[in-house]
């Protein structure tokens, strides 16, 4: 059995007079991993994190922290620390005292306390800022102080609620890398809440995708992207083309499908489908290619380019296919230095793909 530092078992949280913010969720988080809770705003991420921290208590179910049932343990006795979305830097204390806040009551000798705080200041590259007041810091610096204040307590689990949400894009990307490196070097389990799927993909060991109080899928970044287990996950993480198809026949490892606009096409079979089933075949835009010449073999459909967007490293094309309402999205890498237009919009183009790239999802 894996070494789980946090086990969330069938946890439901119902606020007084409200709908269920978290609904029967079970999640296991391994010791030392960078674990993200990802989902759109209002899906219950913060509520779940606050239950781990001890600011909310489950209406049903139980959360085990390092093997201990936590529902009777108040926040100030838990081996977790939190970086708040607003950072919650104490405005009446300077940076040093903010970081030392949680150490004061541990009864450390003064020297040891100073050393630990100075170490933390060095870790967040704010050596010499100890005397500054919280209101004299930039957003990025406040975020670092919040991080240091939590980490100096040496928690077993660090909880972070959208800590990068208030930073501008460039700083956010720098902090993503720094946070990830920091987590590796201190070896503490991080539980990271975000609604930004790219952020979650680039930083996490594993991700739980949430929607409306439910956890839809828990997996590593690659698996989430390449093998989502439902339509919601597939469309929340990145872009995807969905084809509502009917199974025409199953032949060993092959399955014959038919969908509007795509006609008949093949895909690798999945378990438990039979002829006549309705199924969704999904494919990512970058797994599709465009060509002006009609292919002589392989899977393809004919269409007309409706719109193209040039993004430098790649181009996005919207292709209309007869019989299908929605345009098909194709993302093409711009691998050659080329100034002329890619395609003639008045002539038909051909969208091709490798059947192995199709993701089959039960509808």
């Amino acid at each position, binding site marked *: 059995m894996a070494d789980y530092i946090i086990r969330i078992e069938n946890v439901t949280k119902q606020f007084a007079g409200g709908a269920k913010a978290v609904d029967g969720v079970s999640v296991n988080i391994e010791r030392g991993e960078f674990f993200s809770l990802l989902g759109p705003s209002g899906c219950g991420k913060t509520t779940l994190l606050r239950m781990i921290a001890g600011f909310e208590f489950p209406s049903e179910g139980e959360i085990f922290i390092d093997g201990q049932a936590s529902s009777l343990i108040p*926040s*100030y006795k838990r081996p977790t620390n939190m970086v708040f979305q607003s950072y919650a830097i104490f405005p*009446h204390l300077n940076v040093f005292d903010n970081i030392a806040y*949680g150490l004061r009551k541990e009864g450390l000798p003064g020297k040891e306390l100073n050393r630990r705080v100075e170490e933390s200041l060095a870790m967040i590259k704010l050596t010499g800022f100890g005397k500054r007041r919280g*209101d004299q810091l930039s957003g990025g610096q406040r975020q670092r102080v919040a991080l240091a204040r939590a980490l100096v307590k040496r928690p077993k689990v660090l909880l972070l609620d959208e800590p990068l949400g208030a930073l501008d894009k460039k700083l956010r990307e720098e902090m993503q890398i720094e946070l990830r490196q920091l987590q590796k070097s201190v070896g503490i389990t991080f539980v990271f809440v975000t609604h930004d799927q790219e952020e979650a993909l680039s930083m996490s060991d594993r991700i739980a995708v949430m929607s409306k109080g439910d956890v839809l899928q828990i997996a590593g970044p690659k698996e989430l992207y390449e093998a989502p287990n439902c339509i919601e996950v597939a469309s929340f993480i990145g872009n995807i083309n969905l084809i509502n198809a009917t199974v025409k026949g199953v032949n060993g490892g092959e399955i014959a499908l038919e969908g509007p606009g795509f006609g008949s096409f093949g895909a690798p079979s999945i378990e438990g489908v039979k002829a006549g089933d309705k199924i969704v075949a999904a494919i990512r835009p970058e797994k599709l290619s465009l060509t002006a010449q009609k292919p002589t073999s392989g899977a393809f459909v004919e269409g007309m380019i409706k719109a193209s967007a040039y993004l430098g490293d790649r181009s996005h094309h919207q292709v209309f296919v007869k019989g299908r309402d929605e345009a098909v999205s194709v993302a093409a890498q711009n691998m050659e230095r080329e100034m002329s237009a890619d395609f003639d919009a008045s002539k038909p183009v051909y969208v091709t793909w490798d059947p192995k790239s199709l993701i089959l999802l039960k509808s």
Partner: protein
Amino acid sequence: MTTKPSREAKRMGDAGGGLALFAIAYLLFLYVPVLFLPLFSFNDSIFVSFPLQGFTTKWYEQMFADEDMLKALIASLQVGGVVAIASTILGLLGAKAVTRYRMPGQGAVTGLIMLPLFIPEIILGISLLILVNALDIPLSLITVAIGHIMLCTPFAMAVLTSRLDGFDRSLEEASMDLGETPWMTFWRVTFPLAAPGIVSSLLLAFIVSFDEFLLSFFLQGRQPTLPVYIWSQLRFPSKLPSVLSLGAIILITSCVLVFFAEWVRQLGTTGDRKVGVA
């Protein structure tokens, strides 16, 4: 600078002049009568009228020699002190409850706490008197203080609610997250952050209690508070000048207190503005 009037002045034109005149008239109307108090307190005549008769400090001597007046002053200071502390504590608890917790019937509870602000004092006074009589509680400074606490708690709660509302509630959660108990969190975070509001609340409650007349009049026992005592002395013309000198002293003290309270409040708010919780 140039001789041309500034654009600002042009735009304001006569309207600006009119407004300034109005403001000056208003301030005169407000403060000149009050300024008569110190003026006549040094006037060497028992008649409060012009022309002034020469400078004297004898009214001040008379006042300090008037034992009843000093007793009334001390009574008012005692009541004011107790009321300020009690209603600030009650107000702080109430403010903490309404800003930090969601309770059923919260609106109704807040409304009921605030209600004494809107009930005419005379009705409040009579109903309290009936209650105190019904319960057979002897009238004394204690009953006066209880009445004042009822009156001052809403003021205290209003001041403190706006103060507590102004700061991020995750500050208190952060403290508990870092290992402090709710009690220590109150002392290490809530209290220092609410301190400017607490000072304002203490001063406000004290001043409201100190010059309150109606409730004191209904609820007092043998010992009157200062406003009631002054009112009772107005019948004796010879006492009037020493009342004026007492008034002058109270006036100066109140001004100092109000400026101090405002200064503390501003210290608090400028600090917050700079912090600007994201």
